[in-house]
Structure formats: structure tokens, C-alpha cells
């Protein structure tokens, strides 16, 4: 086992464990914090694939900005065990069936893909470095990139309009 494999197993265990803790925690604040741990371990996986830019942006945007807003909302609403509405038993069962169906579909979809032939390039490849990524984004993928920029801009304008006082 070399260092990459050790790190891979470690990060995978952390990612799966923290992801399970997100959905099993009773306290929503704990769920948010475990989700942050999940983001960090996924960023670790990105670094193993040498996608450094993606890893750092994942931390800045998701762990650093979006989860802070999640925490804001949850802390201000002061959700806890007592105030959490108890769902009806049938509703829970329906949720379990729906989730099971989704799992079935995903397993079925993954069964036919040729994952075995497509090995991930670990610790090599330079496309994840910022220079190459920037070149690709502004040459090959410039149209989708600009379109998504316009999407973000319109979302920003919309947020300002909604947030503005009458």
C-alpha cells in the first residue's frame, strides 16, 4: 500500500461516515457540521486526483460560503429535537420506499457502466492545475462558461431585487 492508497481509504471512510452522520444526526446543527466534514474529505479526493483548483474552490464556495448560510438559517430558527415536527408513520414508510427506488435506479445505472476499464488518474495529469484549467475554460468551453456566468449574474440581480426594501 502506498501513501495514495492509504489516503484514499482514509478519505473514503471519513466521507462515507460523515455523510451517514449528516442524515442520522438528530440535531440539524450537527448535520450541517458533518456535511462540512464531508466536503473536506471530498476535497481531499480531488487533491488525490490532482484537481487542486476544484478542491480549493469546493472548500471556499461550499464549506466556506454556502454552509455558513445554512448555519445562519438553522441557528436563527433554533431547531432542536423538541420543536421538530413528528411525521406520520405512513409518511416515513413512503419516504423509505421512494428512497429505495432511487437507490435501485442508481445501482441499475452503475451496473452497466464500464468503471473497471476507466481507471482514475491518481496523482498525475495537469488539467486540474489552474493554468490549464483556465485555458480550457476560455478556449474550448468558452460558450458554456459565459452562459453559466450570465446565469449567475441573473441570479445575483434577482437576489438583490428580492432583498431590496420596498
Amino acid at each position, binding site marked *: 500500500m502506498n501513501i495514495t492508497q492509504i489516503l484514499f481509504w482514509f478519505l473514503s471512510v471519513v466521507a462515507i461516515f460523515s455523510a451517514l452522520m449528516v442524515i442520522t444526526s438528530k440535531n440539524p446543527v450537527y448535520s450541517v457540521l458533518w456535511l462540512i466534514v464531508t466536503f473536506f474529505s471530498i476535497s481531499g479526493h480531488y487533491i488525490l486526483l490532482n484537481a487542486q483548483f476544484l*478542491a*480549493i474552490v469546493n472548500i471556499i464556495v461550499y464549506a466556506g460560503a454556502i454552509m455558513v448560510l445554512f448555519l445562519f438559517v438553522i441557528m436563527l430558527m433554533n431547531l432542536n429535537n423538541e420543536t421538530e415536527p413528528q411525521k406520520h408513520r405512513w409518511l416515513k414508510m413512503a419516504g423509505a420506499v421512494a428512497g429505495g427506488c432511487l437507490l435501485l435506479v442508481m445501482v441499475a445505472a452503475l451496473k452497466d457502466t464500464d468503471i473497471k476499464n476507466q481507471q482514475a488518474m491518481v496523482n498525475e495529469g495537469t488539467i486540474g492545475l489552474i*493554468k490549464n484549467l483556465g485555458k480550457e475554460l476560455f478556449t474550448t468551453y468558452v460558450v458554456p462558461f459565459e452562459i453559466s456566468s450570465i446565469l449567475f449574474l441573473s441570479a445575483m440581480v434577482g437576489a438583490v431585487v428580492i432583498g431590496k426594501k420596498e
Partner: protein
Amino acid sequence: MYLLAIDLWFILEKAILIACIIGLSFFIAMYTTYAERKVAGWLQDRHGPNRAGPFGIFQPLADGGKLFFKEEIIPLASNRILFILGPGLAMVTALVTSTVIPWGAPIVTDKGIIPLQVADVDMGILIVFSVVSVGVYGIMIGGWASNNKFSLIAAIRGASQMVSYELPMGLALIAVLFMTGSLKMSEIVANQAANGWHVIYQPLGFIIFFVCALAECNRTPFDLPEAENELNFGYHQEYSSMKLGFYLFAEYINMFISSAVMATLFFGGYDIPFVNEAAWGLEPWLLSLISFSVLMAKIAFFLFVFIWIRWTIPRFRYDQLMNLGWKKLIPLALLNMIISAAVMLWLNK
């Protein structure tokens, strides 16, 4: 020496470097508290601490010892785990940023080059930003877990302040990155050593960055999270003993690190101004030592400015803070970015 295909010498080298940097951060932060009180005394025409040792230089040790031996109180209604996690997280995020800062010229030995930088990664400065953006959690978790409305309000103020000021900080930085064409800290320093410090080309960018650094460190005039007259004591109201010490200490480490980042990005890092030190033909370790001292002098200057501002300028109101961040600094940083891009395009055509 290889075990599990890991180069143990490499690990050892980095471990020593990390230990040195953490020790240095603690030492500097300790004596920044002393400097703060001395400078405050000087500005207010009084002596400042002068009892512990000559000129009071053992005052930080006395303060630290006092905090260690104070009674530790964890409020009954608080969330115990998160209450303890909060200050620890604040401390860790304050220390992690130092990994990408080049502390001096690399030491060249006959066995190889030892860089005085823990990790010279391609992402360099973005790592600093990611840690800064994660640094919010120490305050938020601590403030929420205290189960006190003042703590919570202060924590939310602090978090929204830090999130708001990250944006102009990043935008001001983009103009610097135009000039270097790289995010690597070592290349940013090398570029400044070759072409002159960035502060000459980007004075507006530096001012924006500096204002944002003040806000990110929760320093006056942006110390709204600890505004005593509105929020009693801020997000660490319920904390006592060394947990309080960690919060206060993390602030000083943040000051130290952000001074180091500013010195590296805008003031040439470990570069010695006006001279070509490579031509002196000094021993490599001596050159590293001198460049390290130069960086420390720059950092000391910034720390002094931080303290000077604290004892000179009164605190902003919260709406003024938000207006300054969103309505003034962000457009200004965008303008700075566009103008620098246009000028560079014009010069390079």
C-alpha cells in the same frame, strides 16, 4: 529512508519547519499582546505594563499563566461538545494559513535545497482564502453553543462581516495575480524581487486588501463582533479560562498571519529592498536568515499599524460596515481590476 513509500526525511524536514512556524506564531502573538498594551499606553500618555520583569516584558507570560489557572466554566445549558470545539477550531484555522507563506530565501546545501515554506503548491494564495473562509466556523460554533443571545448575535455579525469582506479581498487580489500570472506564493515573491513591489503598481488594491484584512481579523474599526456597549462581550461572552484565551490568542495569530500575507503579496515578501542580495556572495544560510529577518521587520511594521489603528479610530456602526463593504469596496475593487487589466493589455499589445 523509505517506509510505506514515504520519504521519512521529507516528513521530518517538514515537521521541524511546521513546529518552528507554530512556535514562532505563538511567540509573536504573545508579544503582540504586549506591544498592543505598550503602544496603547504610549498613545494615551501612560506607561503600559511595567511590573513583570524589566519594562514588563514578562507580562504576556503572566497573562497566559493567569488564564491557565482561572476557573473553567461551561454553562449548563450550552452544547458541551461544540462549546469546546469552537475555540479549538478558531485556533487551528488561525495557524493553518502559515503553511503556504514563504518565510525566507531557500537554504541551498550540498544535499539539496531546503525551502523555508511548508508547501509551495500551485494553489498558493487560494489556500489562504479557503482557510479564511472556513475561519468563520470557530466564531459561529462558539457563539451558538454558548446558548446566549448576545453571543449568537455577535457570532452572526462576525460571520456576515467576514463573508462580506472576503469578496473585495479576493477582487483586490485578482489585480495582483494579473501581474504575476501565478498563484504560487514563491513566484509572487520572485516576481516582486525582479520587477518591484506590487504596492507600487497596485496602491489601491493594497488599501482595499488592508481594510479587508482589518475586517477579517475583527480588529478596530471593524470589531463589531466584540462591541462591548451593544453585545456585552461578544461571541466569547460565556467563555472563561484558556478557552477564552484561545479566542483572544487566535485573533493575534490572525493578525500576524495576515500581516505576513500582506507583506508577501504587496511588499515583496522576504525580498530586501533596493539591493541585489544574490550578488553579495554570502553563505546561503546567512542569506536565508537575513531575508527571514527582513520579512519579520515588514510583519512587525504591519502589526504596529494594526495596533495604531485600534487606538486611534473609533468603531463603525454595523450598517456603515456593511455599506462600506458592499457599496464602496466591491465596486472600487472591480474598478481597480478592470483598470489594471486594461493597462496591462495596453502595455503588452
